[in-house]
């Protein structure tokens, strides 16, 4: 087949086609007179034209884009893959930068209330650029720690741009400027909710897991209950806790319990968090080979020593992946908990949804996603480090 010799990477071809189509047909940005009106579209070429008129070098953004377009036709090799990864990361970062620059140019000739927000074209190109970086990293066959490092570099570059103030004219950051204190408090509250649920989860879940692993009757009793709890949608569980907790609050006013607010949120989060923790504690301990236990017993170790020095270290990676699932899930559930007045980033998100302020929605939702992905990456890194040490 002749195309085999020309076309070396069909994934990159698909991504490049998506980038080209989005650049030509979809609005890169939206420009609106204020935050409640929908904007008029600004195409990618219009943004580049604006830069060229001022003699700015924004067209440089197109260079990594061109590399992604070229990769499908290059003979595969390590160098091409490295260029592919770098191009994906730089294009993703460059698009954000270009959006920030164009927003600043548009703001210079507009009323202070004017907003420049990301358009569909931006999102498609950004996603395609990040996927290109992921595809390249995969083709290089790097360990998961390196994959996380590439993600951290991209996040770091965007962080530098955020800190430098180059992006301040983008609508999401204008919204941030209005909500600076609220936002900081929301991030702290979000983290506190997740952490506060983690403490009772670990205190109950780990002993319960250890017990369930040893006593089959406990195991048979615990899992059906936890599975049904996990099935109940979060918004319903929050609602169902509302009534008994308000009754309790009226009966015992001194305890600081209430049907709404952070306390029921933490209780509900704990219910959801138990399943992954108990399940992975059991699975981790189940995974310890009985030959290893026998050997430890043969060496004269006591039951306590076997548990602490043999079983716990061997079960740790599986346990940590349960912790990862729990935390990622809790970050998302804590956002829903804003509906019952628990605060956190979800409060910003829902406030935006109820008030039809879409920048506010993004200001709440995007950090929730970033937080979940960061927690996931951090714990995957921990598992890979511990796994390597154990090996």
């Amino acid at each position, binding site marked *: 087949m002749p195309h085999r010799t020309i076309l070396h990477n069909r994934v990159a071809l698909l991504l490049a086609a998506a980038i080209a189509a989005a650049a030509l047909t979809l609005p890169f940005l939206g420009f609106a007179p204020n935050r409640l009106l929908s904007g008029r579209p600004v195409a990618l070429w219009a943004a580049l034209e604006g830069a060229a008129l001022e003699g700015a070098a924004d067209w440089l953004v197109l260079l990594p884009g061109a590399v992604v377009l070229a990769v499908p036709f290059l003979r595969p090799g390590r160098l091409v893959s490295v260029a592919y990864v770098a191009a994906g990361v730089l294009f993703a970062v460059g698009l954000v930068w270009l959006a920030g620059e164009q927003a600043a140019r548009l703001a210079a000739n507009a009323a202070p209330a004017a907003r420049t927000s990301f358009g569909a074209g931006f999102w498609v190109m950004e996603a395609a650029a990040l996927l290109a970086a992921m595809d390249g990293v995969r083709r290089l066959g790097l360990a998961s720690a390196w994959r996380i490092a590439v993600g951290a570099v991209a996040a770091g570059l965007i962080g530098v741009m955020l800190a430098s103030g180059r992006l301040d004219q983008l609508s999401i950051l204008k919204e941030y400027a209005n909500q600076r204190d609220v936002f900081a408090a929301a991030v702290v509250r979000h983290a506190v909710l997740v952490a506060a649920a983690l403490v009772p989860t670990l205190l109950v879940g780990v002993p319960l897991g250890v017990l369930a692993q040893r006593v089959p009757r406990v195991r048979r009793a615990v899992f059906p209950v936890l599975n049904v709890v996990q099935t109940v949608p979060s*918004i319903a569980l929050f609602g169902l806790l509302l009534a008994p907790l308000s009754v309790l609050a009226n009966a015992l006013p001194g305890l600081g319990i209430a049907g709404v607010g952070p306390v029921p949120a933490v209780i509900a989060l704990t219910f959801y968090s138990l399943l992954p923790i108990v399940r992975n504690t059991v699975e981790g301990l189940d995974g310890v080979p009985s030959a290893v236990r026998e050997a430890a017993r043969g060496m004269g170790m006591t039951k306590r020593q076997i548990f602490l020095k043999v079983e716990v270290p061997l079960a740790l990676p599986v346990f940590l992946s349960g912790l990862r699932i729990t935390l990622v899930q809790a970050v998302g559930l804590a956002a829903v908990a804003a509906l019952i007045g628990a605060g956190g980033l979800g409060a910003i998100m829902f406030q935006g949804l109820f008030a039809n302020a879409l920048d506010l929605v993004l200001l709440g939702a995007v950090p929730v996603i970033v937080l979940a992905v960061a927690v996931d990456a951090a714990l995957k890194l921990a598992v890979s480090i511990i796994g390597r040490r154990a090996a």
Partner: protein
Amino acid sequence: MRPGSTTVRWRMAFLTDRLTLAVAVLVALVLGMPLLKPLFAAAFPALDRPLYEADSFLALTLDHLALVGLSSLMAVVAGCAAGVFVTRPSGAEFRGILEAVATMGQTFPPVAVLAVAVPVMGFGPKPALIALTLYALLPIVENTVAGLEGVPEAVLESARGLGMGPVERLFRVELPLAAPVILAGVRTAVVINVGTAAIASTVGAKTLGLPIIVGLNGSNQAYVIQGAVIVAALAVVLDFGFDRLAALSVRWRRG
């Protein structure tokens, strides 16, 4: 054994079956909620309107099911097609990136995906449908690939030996063998979507979440409980239903 006793036993088993019970509870709640109005009035004397009456619970339940069903159906069709494609030689190149997306995407909280869909697509049932479909795709794709990958090479070899073509092999050997794993992915997707569909009433979709949201915003606890109980019952019914389907799919697999 007399045939009569088997029928009786079968009937008893049907009556005590947890799926039947859960369905009965759900139907009773959906249709009988208005009958509980005096109960809610007694429990919450401060409320002027102790029963959510803006929409019937039946209509909300059907809308909720339509949203979950349609998004899951689209996700099953697209997800299975994608899973089959990347496990064929012609699509093998796309497998890694597809799996990476499916894994990474599942760390995105569903509620945040739903919220982000609004600035991109506006309010209403459309962004909810798109967000739910996209989110449901991830576990379905993941499990379709895992299920098809788990078919033993020896089985495929003997199917080839029997003279089956690629298409026949896919539909008569691979998909039946992968069915339980694919079904587990669909179950994950549906259970998540039932919850996300409830939250979707904050973006303008009419679902069972509506009484909950209206109740929370207006401090009407009775509304919250009415919505929450039905959503919870619906989720449990679907979960038990998938348990049953899983058992059936294993039987189908054995042929």
